[in-house]
């Protein structure tokens, strides 16, 4: 290798290093948004309607209370954390028969609001055949998506402690 060749290699190296430093890396492709879409702390109302029971909790002064004033169970925060973490794993499109996915009168309806505006409004249907996920439809969309069955667990947990 001649001195000239070595200098050329150093120059190429310098250009490459400058490229890495100056040009920002490409952003990763956007993944599906979480079910909540806003920070957990901003949520101040949660309404959940199962086919045979309904509850509503509001947050004031940092703690959740039911409409009747009872202190909300810790499961409320865990449900919110799950909604903030869960992202659709699959989009099944708009089905001809939503009832095939449990998205009819049997569905559980969840509405989370922040400052008086709904930030998440969901219908939660059946679990998929392997029970790894549940079918969910967001209000305003006809698409059915699959999200992790953790959502089912959190809703059942809350139902056990929050409904008579």
């Amino acid at each position, binding site marked *: 290798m001649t001195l000239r060749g070595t200098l050329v290699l150093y120059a190429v190296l310098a250009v490459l290093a400058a490229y890495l430093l100056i040009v920002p890396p490409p952003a990763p492709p956007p993944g599906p948004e979480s079910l909540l879409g806003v920070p957990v702390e901003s949520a101040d109302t949660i309404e959940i309607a199962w086919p045979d029971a309904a509850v509503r909790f509001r947050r004031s002064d940092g703690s959740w209370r039911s409409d009747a004033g009872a202190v909300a169970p*810790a*499961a409320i925060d865990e449900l919110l954390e*799950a909604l903030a*973490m*869960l*992202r659709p*794993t699959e989009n099944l499109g708009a089905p001809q028969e939503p009832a095939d996915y449990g998205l009819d009168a049997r569905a559980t309806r969840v509405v989370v609001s922040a400052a008086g505006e709904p930030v998440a409004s969901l219908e939660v249907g059946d679990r998929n055949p*392997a*029970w*790894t*996920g549940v079918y969910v439809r967001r209000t305003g969309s006809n698409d059915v998506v699959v*999200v*992790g*069955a*953790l*959502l089912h*667990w959190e809703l059942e*947990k809350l139902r*056990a*402690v929050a409904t008579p």
Partner: protein
Amino acid sequence: MIRLVRVLVLVTLVCAPAVQPAVADEGEWILDANNWQEGKDLLPDPVLKRLQNGEYWFRVVAVDPVKFKQNFSKKFWDATAANAGKYDVEPKQCGLMDKATGKIPEFLTGFPFPEIDPKDPKVGCKIAHNFNFANLQGGGGGATFTLNGVDGSGQFRRIKAYIHTMGYQGRLDGQIKDNPDNLQAQGVGAAIEPIDVEGVSTLTKRYWDWESQDALWAYVPSTRRARRVNAATRSDPVGGLDIFADDLNCYGGKIEYYQWKLVGEGKVLAPLLQPYPFSMSQDPKRATRFLIKTPYVAAGYEKPGSKGAPWWPQENLVFVPRPVWIVEGQSSDPYYNFGKVIMYFDKDLYRIYWKLVHNRAGEYFYTALCGYHFIKDGENFSASFPSMVLGVNDKSNRAALGGRYQTSFIERNWDPKYFSIRTLTRMTD
């Protein structure tokens, strides 16, 4: 592959008579697809679903709760009673703390928390510590066992391995004063068959403090090197099978690795080789070693024409209705593969009988059945052994059976030098 050895357990076989599921004795009944509704409040959902489908069935045996508690020796319960009010958990990592010193206790045996208050904000962590000390009471031992991968068409892989463990904490035999590394426990495991994994071995050391991760070394004969590996590998599949090192006792990690939360209570069917303890006999070759013989739990793939899924136990396993705490655990380690894990802890003996596992994306994918047996020698010694694990991956509809050993031993005076990298490197010499 390397971690396969860290998985299981101990004990022996006896030629116990095969169970005939169609014939139930008094106090016993069969739960199957015909009466699956009776299992609604006794089984986790994914298990109930397979019961309903006819894939699983259960020989249910009722027990006297007072007698069942006596599966642990009087010495254990006396120590538990003496621990009342002495311990708490520190807030940062839920480490066990001596109230008198504010530090980790020097040594204890029995349950650290005899009374569990469900309203206590730290209750999940206290339940987990009780679980750990139930495991530790026997002090140490070993067994040779198999891991069997099973799918819808039968067994697709079999690995034979052994594990030897030595405990420093929780021993009913008392404290081992010579503990220069400040260990809670240590263990060696190695694969024996098939030839492609023969000699793959691991050494694990668990430190008796609140912060340290387990130290794990793995040895691969082809490279002749023992290398340190990450403790989070406990959530990796063992040997490509649907079973994990953390399935040992249904939770094989350090208590401080998880955040524990009590979320409910209920009743489940507890899988046991038999409801009451096995005895142990002196090993004629070694004064400090005691042998235990236990029956083999044959699965469907080994019994042509049997009822249910190929991986479902067919004999020598009974199911005892037991009151349980339902506890969620979640690792704080970003390299750990599991998300939220739901576990069912016996309210008296703190055995975890079932666990449901979600992945990091919140998908449920896996259930483990954790079967046990108890060993008792008079009222001064008892031990709880994990007899078997049945891991079922509901996402891939495959399963793995671990344990089901036919011979095992309790060793009451291990040479600590055995638990060394030198043992790993010389294993295949």
